[in-house]
Structures are given as structure tokens and as C-alpha cells.
């Protein structure tokens, strides 16, 4: 009779390649992939005494889409929220360690969360358009914070149009800009939120499971637009859907119980993961 350890002495066959469809990747030299956008150093995030993110150090490249994957509760959303200082808005939450965005420490002495959030856009899992505002007002909502640089109405209209174009929503809503944002479908509302985040021309956009509540068609539209955005913005996307990560991202980080297990190019992570835990996750042994 085989001992239980003997059953697994031989490595199980690789089931990796058929599970995900990888996009043909562009050659590395054509991107400024060398300059990091977000650098986390021994970053830990706590809710009270519990650490949701433990000593994560990661260097996220510019103008690329980086995906963060992992099972539920592994801390990927928490990690994301450390990048725009949203984690600390929860009562009893704190951050240790540091994060630099484009060279500036965002947790340094005297730095203000408000300034950080102005330059880092965020889109959440459920669409959150402001219900009392029109589509135009929603998109421009982030602009109001800094009245000085976007003073004239004309400039605002241009910015609104540009943001809606980048979000792939312009054609659908250009004739109803002054109507309520709640009249849009779920997928449109989410793209509106993306437009709202893009309106301030941030250098970084953080997406926290943006397609989790969307139908497949809207999901596809959002994924396409995320892929296009990488030309101009650094995108970090948290997703529980591995196929999505494979479709959309250039690099993927795998988080497990608050720790960064592996971070590599998407192709490598999904075809030849170095860590056995990564392999277990992506082959579906646990989820």
C-alpha cells in the first residue's frame, strides 16, 4: 500500500498552459519598463492588531498593467489601498513601511493624503457614480477639488470629453451629458467611474476588482480599455479572476495571506511559476 507521501513523489502533470489565454507580449525594450512607478518597501498594513499585508516589497513598472491576484482575504485590496492612502480612512487602521510613487514618498513627513489621491485614481468594485449629479458633473467631480488649474467652463468640457473618450464612453453618452448618471447601465456606470478617475489626468490608476459586478460584455469593454490605458497611465488591477489577469496585465503579483509570494511577468507567472504555492493557486488546487 502506498504511503500518502509516496503518491505525490512524482510531480503532477502541468495543467498550467490550457487554463489561461495569454496575450502575445510586446518586447520589453519598447516600453519604459525599467523605471518603476510605485515602489513599496517593507509595507505592512494593519486593521487594529491584525496585519492584512505583511512586509511587502514590490516595484511596479510605469506605463504597464500590473495585476495582483490571490485568494479571498489575502490582502490584495488592502495592498492596493495603501498606494493611495485609502487604507487609513478605516478607523483603527494603520500602515508601516513606505511607498514611493514616482520618486516621492507618499507616507513621508508632512505629506498629505489628499495630494496623493489627486494624482492616483481609484475605481472600486461596485460602480459608485454620485447619484445627485449629471454625467458631466460626475466626470468633473475630481476637478472641483483643485479649482485653480481648471477654472474655465470650456476647459472643463474639454477635460470631460477627453476623459470619457479614454474610458470608451464618449460615443454612448455624448448626447446626454446633463442627464442623471443613474440612468446608465451598470457597465456604463463603471466606465463613468473610470472616466471620473481619469479626468484629473493621474499618473496611476488603481482598479479594485472593477469588473466583479459587471456582465461579460461590459467586462470585456472594461478589459479592453484597461489594456489601452497602459500607453499613458500606470495601471494596477486587483482581480480574483486569473483569466482576466492573464488577458489584461503585463506583470502579475501573487499574494497569499498578506505576503507577496511571487511577482513576475504575466507570461512567466502563468507558465512557469517559481513558487509551489503560486502553482497550486493557478492550477486551482485552492482558491
Amino acid at each position, binding site marked *: 500500500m502506498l504511503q500518502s507521501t509516496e503518491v505525490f513523489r512524482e510531480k503532477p502533470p502541468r495543467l498550467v498552459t490550457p487554463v489561461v489565454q495569454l496575450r502575445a507580449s510586446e518586447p520589453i525594450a519598447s516600453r519604459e519598463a525599467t523605471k518603476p512607478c510605485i515602489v513599496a518597501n517593507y509595507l505592512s498594513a494593519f486593521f487594529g492588531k491584525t496585519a492584512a499585508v505583511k512586509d511587502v516589497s514590490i516595484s511596479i513598472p510605469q506605463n504597464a498593467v500590473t495585476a495582483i491576484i490571490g485568494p479571498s482575504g489575502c490582502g490584495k485590496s488592502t495592498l492596493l489601498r495603501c498606494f*493611495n492612502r*485609502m487604507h487609513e*480612512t478605516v478607523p483603527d487602521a494603520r500602515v508601516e513601511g513606505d511607498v514611493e510613487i514616482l520618486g516621492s514618498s507618499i507616507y513621508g513627513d508632512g505629506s498629505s493624503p*489628499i*495630494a496623493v*489621491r*489627486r494624482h492616483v*485614481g*481609484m475605481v*472600486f468594485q*461596485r460602480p*459608485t457614480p*454620485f*447619484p*445627485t449629479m449629471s454625467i458631466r458633473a460626475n466626470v468633473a*467631480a*475630481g476637478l472641483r*477639488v*483643485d479649482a485653480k488649474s481648471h477654472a474655465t467652463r470650456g476647459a472643463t468640457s474639454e477635460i470631460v470629453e477627453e476623459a470619457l473618450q479614454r474610458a470608451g464612453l464618449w460615443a454612448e453618452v455624448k448626447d446626454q451629458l446633463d442627464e442623471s448618471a443613474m440612468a446608465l447601465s451598470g457597465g456604463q456606470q463603471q466606465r463613468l*467611474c473610470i472616466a*471620473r*478617475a481619469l479626468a*484629473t489626468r493621474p499618473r496611476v490608476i488603481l482598479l479594485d476588482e472593477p469588473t466583479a459586478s459587471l456582465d461579460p460584455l461590459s467586462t470585456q469593454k472594461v478589459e479592453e480599455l484597461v489594456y489601452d490605458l497602459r500607453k499613458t497611465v500606470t495601471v494596477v488591477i486587483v482581480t480574483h479572476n486569473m483569466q482576466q489577469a492573464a488577458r489584461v496585465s503585463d506583470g502579475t503579483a501573487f499574494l497569499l495571506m498578506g505576503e507577496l509570494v511571487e511577482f513576475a511577468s504575466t507570461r512567466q507567472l502563468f507558465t512557469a511559476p517559481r513558487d509551489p504555492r503560486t502553482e497550486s493557486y493557478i492550477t486551482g488546487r485552492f482558491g
Partner: protein
Amino acid sequence: MARLERVERSVSVKTAGRRHFVSGAMIGVTYLCAVLATLPLLIILWHLIAKGASSISLAFFTHMPRPVGEQGGGMANAIVGTLILIGVASAIGLPVGIGAGLYLAEKKTTPLAQTVRFLADVLNGLPSIVMGIFAWQVLVRPIGHFSALAGGVALGAMMIPLVTRTTEEMLLVVPTSLREAALALGYPKWRTSISVVLRTALAGIVTGALVAVARIAGETAPLLFTALGNQFWSTSIREPIAALPLQIFTYATNAYEELHKLAWAGALVLISIVLVISLAARLATRSRFGAPVD
């Protein structure tokens, strides 16, 4: 578990037939209670319309009271007086109530918030005449004469706990994701609270404010020794002022039949306003986010 033992006992002691009869009878009793409990409202409304509708005319709203014995006359001064009192009361009650509501919705369960919430409910239950003598002690006695201001302050103090509670309720309905979205855009905290959360809940808050206004518009006791009432036309807040409920009280307890009719008319006007606002408020908060609130 003791309760279920009682059930078991009662199940075994009596015969099934008798138990079912008792059950049916008690259910019938509750139906009867339902009928009896809805009757008073309908009966009172019926009487108000029957006795008051005939005296309602344009003259009622535009004419001053006539000396006793003469035909006609209206309650113009009382209606205007009530409006002025509502204005003064709202100027106090609304800002303080909304501000307190904002505080409670944000601080949720801190000891101070819980104390404030508790005391607001207690304040709500205080007899309105106690408010009246408080306002008298503070605003009439030292000054030496009655005034609309004192009446307005008494009513405003009554508004505060009402507006606080409804504002807090409406603010709590706003999903936290909206607040987060605003923060993520770089809004400072105060801006999040006011431009996003308060703005989203505004319709509900306004409704709650209107309900509070309807409630204090009908109050008489706090006005007895503050606004006092005034048989002449007056719009000054430093003088005694007429008010609709006060006028109804004075006419109802008067000997002359003519004045009784006016009292009924005034009561009909008062209750119409109250009912319309209550119904509108109920409908508005029901279909708030697509589902009944109950």
C-alpha cells in the same frame, strides 16, 4: 426554551377543537382591534370636514377676526403668525438638527454620540408645556413681555431632536462606497460629508424637516405663555403674535357659536397641512432606493 415548554403544555392539555376555536376567536379579536384603531382617525376627519368645510373661504385666509357677534371674519393673522413662528423655529431647529445629525451619522457609536442620541429621544418625549415654561423663564421673564421670538425659540427647541434623528437616519442610508469614492478623488473629509453624503441624502433630510415643521405647527402649549396670541395684525417678532393652534383653542373654549365654526375651519386647515406633509413624507421615503423602507 421555557416558552416552548409552555407551548407543549398548552398543546397537550386542551382538546384540538377547542384550541382551534380559541385561536380563531383571538384572530377575530385582532381584526376587531384593527378596525377600532383605524376608526378614530376617520371619525375625526369626518367631523372636521363636516363642521369646518363650510366656513372655509377666501375670506378665511385673508380677513382678520371680527368682533364677537359679527358675521364673517377669518384667521389671517393667525395663519401669518404661524408662518412667522415656523420661520423662527426652523432657523434654530434646522441648522442645529442637521449639524447634530451629521455628527451622529459619522461618529456612530462613540459614548458621546450614544449619549446625544439617547438625550435627543428623551427631549422628544418632554411635554410641550414644559418647553413653554422653559422658554418663558428664559426669554419672557427677563425681558418683561411676551414675544413671537420666545414662541419661536420654544418651537425650535422642540424641532432639534426631531430633525436630528431623521437626518441621522437618512445619512446612514447613503452607502459608504460613495464616501470612499469621494475620498479617493482627493476630497477632504468635510467636503465628502457635505458635497457627497449630505447632498445624496438631501431629499430625505428635507422630508424629515418638513415632518418636523408639520409637527410643531400644530403645537399650542409652548405658545401659551410665549407668543401668547394677538387679536390684531402683527408681524413683529418682539411682540405677541397670533398662531393658528392658539386661535383654535381660544375660539373653541369661547361661548359664541360663530367662533366655534371658525375653530373647526382652522382645525381643518391645520390638519390638512399636517396630513398632506405626512403622506408626502411617507411616500417619498418609501420608494427611496427602490424598496419599501419598512
